[in-house]
């Protein structure tokens, strides 16, 4: 039932104005042992109500991208060099500290991977939920408390009013992540950025959180950017997916198109390496040989070429630009795969 609504929604998404539009974002870290080009000309957008999945391995630049666009990286060492991030008609990269502060935790909510380290252990959960409500929305003490109870109930925490006075350590991992989601939702965000929100959780708890997110999307209709390395999670919740590798987006497509008809060799190889608990069992796992690159300089060639089985001469000389390969589907690769193969 809810799934049907979602696909109807995604059908007319392309006509909508994006709520967040990122163009040509570049982030460089200057370290003692040289530069690291963590994000290289990343462009993507998110439509209202859409769930955009961002997939990649560690070091592919997915978290740094999100932190750059909201100004969360300390400078130095980080240097957000270029690009535009349009949110609510404002370029966040040019915005002053005050504007950024009102956006962060306000119109853009964040959920991080590890709920234990992102909650403050010395304040009650009630205080931490009320904080954005009072700072961003100017609610009084009583109103903030009432809204906090509402929020905890919304994310499925039983006995919400009483639990406001509990500290983070009194909650289990799954419950803590629900608290994090409640805080992120406090100010009715237009965009919720969730960075590996279920990675630290067990599968049965992850299933609970994924159900909660599907439910919240129905109720609240905000756009969500969901960062993960787990293609299984993405398959279940995303409308559209971008795949990152070596600090850039190598492929972007609606979820079914990406899994059914991947057009970048990395996406294809990744989908072949992961075993499943359902369906036929492979005798031998497919392997992507080698390891992901560390981008010491701005790329002048395809970052995947060393591990790619479709490598051409051209891949050594030029970094492929994303080109359209299907409806709403683009890939940064010179090789042309036959469709549906």
């Amino acid at each position: 039932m809810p799934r049907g609504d979602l696909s109807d929604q995604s059908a007319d998404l392309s006509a909508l104005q994006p709520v967040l539009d990122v163009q040509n974002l570049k982030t460089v870290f200057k370290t003692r042992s040289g530069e690291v080009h963590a994000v290289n000309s990343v462009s993507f957008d998110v439509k209202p109500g859409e769930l955009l999945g961002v997939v990649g391995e560690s070091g592919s630049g997915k978290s740094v991208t999100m932190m750059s666009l909201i100004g969360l990286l300390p400078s130095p060492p980080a240097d957000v060099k270029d690009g535009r991030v349009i949110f609510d008609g404002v370029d966040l990269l040019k915005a002053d500290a005050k504007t950024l502060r009102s956006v962060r935790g306000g119109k853009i909510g964040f959920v991080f991977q590890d709920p234990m380290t992102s909650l403050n252990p010395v304040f009650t959960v009630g205080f931490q939920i009320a904080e954005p409500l009072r700072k961003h929305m100017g609610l009084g003490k009583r109103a903030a408390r009432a809204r906090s109870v509402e929020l905890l109930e919304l994310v499925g925490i039983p006995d919400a009013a009483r639990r406001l006075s509990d500290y983070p350590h009194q909650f289990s991992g799954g419950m803590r992540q629900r608290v994090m989601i409640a805080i992120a939702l406090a100010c009715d965000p237009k965009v919720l950025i969730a960075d590996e929100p279920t990675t630290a959780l067990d599968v049965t708890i992850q299933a609970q959180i994924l159900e909660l997110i599907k439910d919240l999307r129905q109720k609240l209709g905000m756009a969500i950017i969901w960062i993960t390395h787990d293609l299984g999670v993405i398959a279940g919740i995303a409308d559209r997916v971008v795949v990152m590798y070596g600090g850039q987006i190598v492929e972007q497509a609606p979820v079914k198109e990406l899994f059914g008809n991947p057009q970048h060799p990395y996406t294809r190889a990744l989908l072949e390496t992961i075993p499943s608990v359902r369906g036929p069992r492979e005798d031998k796992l497919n392997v992507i040989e080698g390891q992901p690159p560390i981008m010491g300089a701005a790329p002048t060639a395809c970052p995947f070429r060393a591990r790619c089985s479709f490598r051409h001469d051209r891949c050594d000389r030029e970094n492929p630009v994303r080109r359209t390969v299907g409806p709403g589907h683009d890939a940064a690769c010179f090789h042309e795969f036959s469709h549906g193969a």
Partner: protein
Amino acid sequence: MALDMKTEPLVRVQNLKMHFPIYGGLLQRKVGDVKAVDGISFDIYEGETLGLVGESGCGKSTVGRAVLRLYDITDGAIRIDGDDIATADAGKLRSMRPLMQMIFQDPQASLNPRMTVADIIAEPLREHVKMSKIEREDRVLELMDQVGLNKEFANRYPHEFSGGQRQRIGIARALALNPKFIVCDEPIAALDVSIQAQVVNLLEELQDRLGLTYLFISHDLSMVRHIADRVAVMYLGQIAELAPRAELYEAPLHPYTQALLSAVPEPDPNIEEQVERIILTGDVPSPSNPPQGCNFCTRCPQVMEICKTVEPQFQEVQPGRFVACHLHQIAENAASEAHKSIQQGEIT
């Protein structure tokens, strides 16, 4: 892999218990126990991989460590290759160490950052085998070759390697003494998806080539399905179900196994749309205060009255399939009583 169940198992664990004391109060007296492992039994046959799966805190890593006597166990019997290890003294234990080795989860934490790769791999040789320096160096290079490490990097330090390569160093060290049995404790959990498959394939190749026996501990149900011959599912210190791989994944018997498998996301949006998930409510109870009766009764979607009072027996309900659940208990009538006593005899 066809297993001849008649042969004596390489590893036999019976009624293993590992309780950790809790101290509290003003005088720091013992006030209770964390029952991390509470009475589990299983066999591992030579050349086989037994997968041990479960969620964090269920006691699976404690089992792995206890089986190798890295802890002094609370109760139970462990036999490896015919030798009793549960009660062996330090000297005896030391002489058995070459037989049984361990691969750890975090290759960063389990490799000494101040030792070169060659030193790390040579350390077990230096401790347990008399060989000349040249012989030892040759053996180290042979081991590096075996696990796919470039021999030229023998004098580098662990931080110069990637996560996957570090795990290969840990594997080479575990292989140094020609062990028969290796406990792999979450060996791929810290690795990226594209590297996980490399390490799993290496472990499988080594098993084929060297005839190794693995206890493969993991929370990754899809990887365990790939590597294990038989799978044990743990919940709160006990084994809920133990079965050959195909049976367990195709037709799980225990409600916990069913819920666990249904919760695993599928990397295919078309299947994801159709998957019927069993969403468990609540969290795992504390192992210091497990519920009365079946330890899964607080979250079980099929809970019955009996589950809240009587602890189900861990029984063989079909050939090779063990489960601890009242839904599958063999009826207490005369005919099955005889059968049951045989089963009991086998596992207690």
